[in-house]
């Protein structure tokens, strides 16, 4: 058996034509191409990465960037094997994206031992910049703390002060519930009750009856994917929203809203850090993305936009250093330089590796308010960058000096 190339053949060499000695880096998009998260990241992240590289090299012909991609299939062991092989055999300098917290934590560790660089856009776990932070990892787009805090706080402030949680019964759900409950109580709200449901529950009706009986104003969905969708579908059927209660999705993406349809999803409140229809720049970028992705009917998610933004900032740092070999040095440079890109605007990368930017509280529109395909949200509140993420001292990251 010859050398097993675990990687994508898709290696696109976007070389600029100059003959001088160049800085050259290799980027690997490690994502879920085939299962649960392939819609929020996956091939769409690869498209975003290509765009970032094309945009950057057009202005900076002195840098040569190679791109490969791979599918971790949502399995931490396959993900860590791929990461090892990319760093050892394929000489990749940066791994980016990686939805699924389990895989991201594994890759973060490997990156640290091999002194490379890892930018997380797809995974949610706030531990990546908390107890499990390291000097080679940057967490770009969003995290669980920010989702919990953003939605919890904003809803309490707008009158949703009593909560009932439907929590997926595993570590991720518990963390989401804990963080949100803390935010709710800190802002003067009250948690009236909760029920822990098994992962991948089909029928939410009995849990919803319990939520209904609690008379809480907000039903917090500390779950994800199919569970969130099933809960909201059943909620619409049992007249939860019509009865005056409100759903708060704690990890909901535009693709989930699409799966629900606006008829069912209307009124759902959620937090995101980027929305394709927020402004003219984003809309123009979305058009280009749709062409690159070859999918006119799809809309980019914040995760995919984060990949674009992350690569852009990375390439700036590498250009300044003229080398991408030393992961820690590049990360340090990225932390020193303020970020600025068309999609996320101005921001910073904090000492613990947390990228800081604004977050937005959205409400899903009713079908009558939606004017064109993809017209999902109306903006309810903007959470300023300084408040959106967990305060530096509270994370317990060892990189933060006391």
């Amino acid at each position, binding site marked *: 058996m010859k050398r097993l190339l675990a990687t994508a053949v898709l290696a696109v060499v976007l070389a600029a034509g100059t003959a001088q000695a160049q800085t050259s880096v290799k980027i690997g998009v490690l994502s879920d191409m085939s299962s649960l998260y392939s819609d929020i990241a996956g091939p769409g992240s690869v498209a975003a990465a290509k765009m970032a590289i094309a945009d950057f090299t057009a202005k900076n012909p002195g840098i040569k960037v190679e791109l490969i991609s791979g599918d971790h299939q949502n399995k931490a062991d396959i993900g860590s094997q791929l990461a090892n092989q990319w760093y050892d055999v394929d000489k990749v300098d940066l791994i980016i994206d990686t939805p699924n917290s389990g895989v991201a934590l594994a890759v973060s560790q490997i990156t640290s031992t091999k002194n490379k660089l890892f930018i997380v856009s797809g995974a949610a776990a706030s531990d990546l910049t908390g107890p499990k932070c390291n000097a080679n990892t940057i967490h770009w787009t969003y995290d669980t703390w920010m989702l919990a805090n953003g939605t919890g706080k904003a809803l309490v402030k707008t009158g949703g002060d009593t909560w009932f949680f439907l929590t997926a019964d595993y570590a991720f759900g518990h963390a989401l519930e804990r963080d949100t409950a803390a935010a709710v109580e800190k802002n003067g709200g009250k948690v009236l009750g909760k029920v*822990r449901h*098994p*992962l991948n529950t*089909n029928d939410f*009706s009995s849990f919803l009856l319990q939520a209904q009986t609690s008379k809480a104003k907000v039903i917090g969905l500390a779950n994800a994917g199919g569970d969130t969708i099933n809960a909201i579908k059943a909620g619409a*059927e049992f007249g939860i929203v019509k009865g005056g209660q409100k759903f708060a999705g704690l990890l909901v993406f535009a693709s989930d809203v699409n799966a629900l*349809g606006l008829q069912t999803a209307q009124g759902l409140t959620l937090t995101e850090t980027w929305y394709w229809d927020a402004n003219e720049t984003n809309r123009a970028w979305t058009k280009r993305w749709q062409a690159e992705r070859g999918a006119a009917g799809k809309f980019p998610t914040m995760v995919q936009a984060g990949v674009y933004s992350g690569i852009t900032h990375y390439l700036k740092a590498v250009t300044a250093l003229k080398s991408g070999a030393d992961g820690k040095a590049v990360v340090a440079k990225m932390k020193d330089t303020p970020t600025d890109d068309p999609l996320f605007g101005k921001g910073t990368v904090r000492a613990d590796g947390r990228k800081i930017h604004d977050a937005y509280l959205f409400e899903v529109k009713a079908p009558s308010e939606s004017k064109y395909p993809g017209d999902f949200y109306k903006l309810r509140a903007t959470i300023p960058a300084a408040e959106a993420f967990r305060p530096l001292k509270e994370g317990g990251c060892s990189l933060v000096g006391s």
Partner: protein
Amino acid sequence: MFEIFGIPSQALFGQLLIGLINGSFYALLSLGLAVIFGMLNIINFTHGAQYMMGAFTAYLLLQHTGLGYWPALIVAPILVGITGMIVERTMLKWLYKLDHLYGLLLTFGLALIIEGVVRNYYGSAGLPYTMPESLQGGRNLGFMFLPNYRAWVIVASLTICLGTWFVIERTRLGANLRAATENPTLVRAFGINVPRMITLTYGFGIALAAFAGVMAAPIYNVSPQMGAELIIVVFAVVVIGGMGSILGAIVTGFGLGVIEGLTKVFFPEASNTVIFVIMAIVLLVRPAGLFGRRA
């Protein structure tokens, strides 16, 4: 108003009813499995994928031909049933002389293919399917708010289940079917086309799965993986009931739905394991299943 274990009786009635609805899906699916097993001696692992196909077909019919829920309820099972019959004619029929396990392996492979293909074309997040307007809303029963759609699910699945039971146990067609299961050679000697009967039976079992899929589309997430986990639970249901009897499959399906529903009230964390635990207990006490005949 009185209370049972701290739960108001009214809420309890509500939960019982909800359990019955949930059980409707178990009953429809395990009935299909039992019918197929009775005739083909194959345990159909593709059943979950075919349930999912039913839901997707309903979605596609609505998107591309404008056929709504009611026509889809008839058209989708027929279409999916036909694909099932093609599978039976081209693949399954070569396995009848082999160990039963090969049928399980083949249908497992088919389930992977179907799920993979659907995921490639429609992504994994799922697709929207709106409830027909005639079934929206609900009525207050005093002890709970019962959505009209759920009431319809119970009525429809009970009708289908009992109808199937009647045809198989009480009509001449059913008598022929049962005879063909017992002794195909003899039945063939009477001039009955046994292979065609097998094909139609398989198609019918698949159509039942697809019917359940269409019924699920408005209330559950229509996604490629919607059937994969459900089918494992249905397998446990089938082991508990024993596949020997049609009525057994129906009763067990509804019964376990109710038990699962009650678990969701008293001990929600265990609601996904309760059916497996019951299966283990039944195996200890009555290895052949509640309604099974000892092989």
